[in-house]
């Protein structure tokens, strides 16, 4: 019984540690605006794609 409780506690501790580490990591992304810096880097690639790879029936 004690072993089971210990295993459960150990599992919960790991879960809490993973949640705390995940939140800390996300907070770093949030605070240093890393999400927007990444999407800003994606913009020229998308623009190149729209200019060169998408066929359009452009007319009035």
């Amino acid at each position: 019984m004690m072993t089971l409780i210990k295993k459960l506690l150990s599992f919960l501790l790991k879960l809490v540690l993973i949640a705390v580490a995940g939140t800390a990591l996300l907070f770093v992304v949030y605070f240093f605006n890393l999400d927007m810096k990444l999407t800003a880097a994606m913009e020229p690639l998308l623009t190149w794609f729209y200019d060169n790879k998408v066929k359009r029936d452009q007319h009035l």
Partner: protein
Amino acid sequence: MKDENRIGTQNLGSLYTNGRVRSRREWRGIVDTAYDFSRWLHNWITMFRVVLVKPRNIKAMFRYRWMASYLAVPMMIDRHTQGLRNEHLRICHEEQDLIVEDVAKLLDKLFRGDRRIGNDREFSSKVVLVDENEMQSVMMGFPTVVPLSREIASTYIPVLLNQRAALHYIDVAQEYGLAGDVCPMPEAEAGVSIDDDAPVLGCCAVQCNTTCDGSLMGNSVISKRLELEDGIPVFQLATPLRHREDDVQEYAAQEIRNAIAFIEEHTGEKWDWTHYFECAKRVNYATKCRLEWLEINRTDYPQVFGSNLALYTETNYMAISGRLKVFEDADRKITALAEKAFKKKRMAANEYRHRAIIWGVQSHYYMDFLVWLLNCWGIVPLTDMLSMVNTRMIAETDTPENREQAIYDIAWLTENMIMRNRTHGGYKVLLDELWEFVEEFNADMVILWEHMSCKALDGMHGMFEEKAREKGIHLVWVSHDLFDPRVISRQGVRDQINSYMRTVMNEEPVDPSLEILNDVESW
């Protein structure tokens, strides 16, 4: 009035870079930063849950040029929450996060029905396309019909997100010979259609004659493609412009009856009075809340103002029109937050120096200008022209008399669509009522947007100046070109205020770091 205890609201300009995005997000103290972080996370989860998790939406991302602007959603929220703390921050998130979810659902539905992407024909057969300036009150009695605006998704929202989002489409329209001196908003919408960059779906479409020559031109280009190439019939809802005149109301009501009959014919659905009156109750509740916010803004401690008032009113009043209960819930929460903040005498910035009414059609590529006015110069934007819409309660009980009245109410709401209720309708609604609001709100300043391509307002320039002089009100003209920052940049917009405040008012900025910003390349 000053509040020196706010955390981290000095030197907001230091967060700007010369590139697309800011160097980092604001530190707002532990509680407010944690709250803002939680909302940031919530919005990313919403975008993944509604849009990014579905392969068809990713396919759309690689098909439509305007979709690239949606990369900037979190930054748009950061721009509008700049400097906000406590209840004001929560009010802003209550609104913006709901708008993010609503727009995410709009995109998802557009691509679900789009013949090029999802091609769900059954769904598409219940979709009615409505143009960007269409009051959706005409859809209040159709619970099973899906009204979707392609223009909101492809031009209106992208320019809020990215100041240069419409430039490609403006250029395309002009390359095909459309005039360069019309409003760049309908011009960009026409450009999207010409560029073959609009989703194709729906069983029919309704366009409204709002609000100018450019709008009519844009609609004609779009409807030609819809009707002649895509096989989607279009109804032209020709709403009277002299909307304060009694003798136009019968005609306006008949137009609504015709529009309803058109939608019934093409969707196979019948107008549902029970649903209509449920929506009407929510429209009235939204009006009641807005009036309460405006009442608070007449005091020394305004609470729902600036961007918090403008952007939300546009969405809730025009695009929602009582159709969604979540907006009623948001109205309730915002009102509770505003009352709480008012009791605590909360301020939304370090210092309030001037009380201003914002008039005219605002710069769309610089929608967060109102936040800048507050943080840089302590000018409180109490209300704006586009938020001063209908204040009349509409019939909300289902009786035979009210069913007849309801048609007139829908017509009234459509005539009083945002912008057209002031830019059309005569001298009184544009000019006289401004000075009434100045007195009611105890304002000492009017910031008058001069949208260079808006002929509806340009003709009254001299009359505004004459009256401001007579009343001793500071009138500051701010020129812009709505969707096109190449004509007047964001700094060009700011410089007009900076010059007035330094030379006429002889004042120094509250936050000097915001006076000159290099944000030409910014989203």
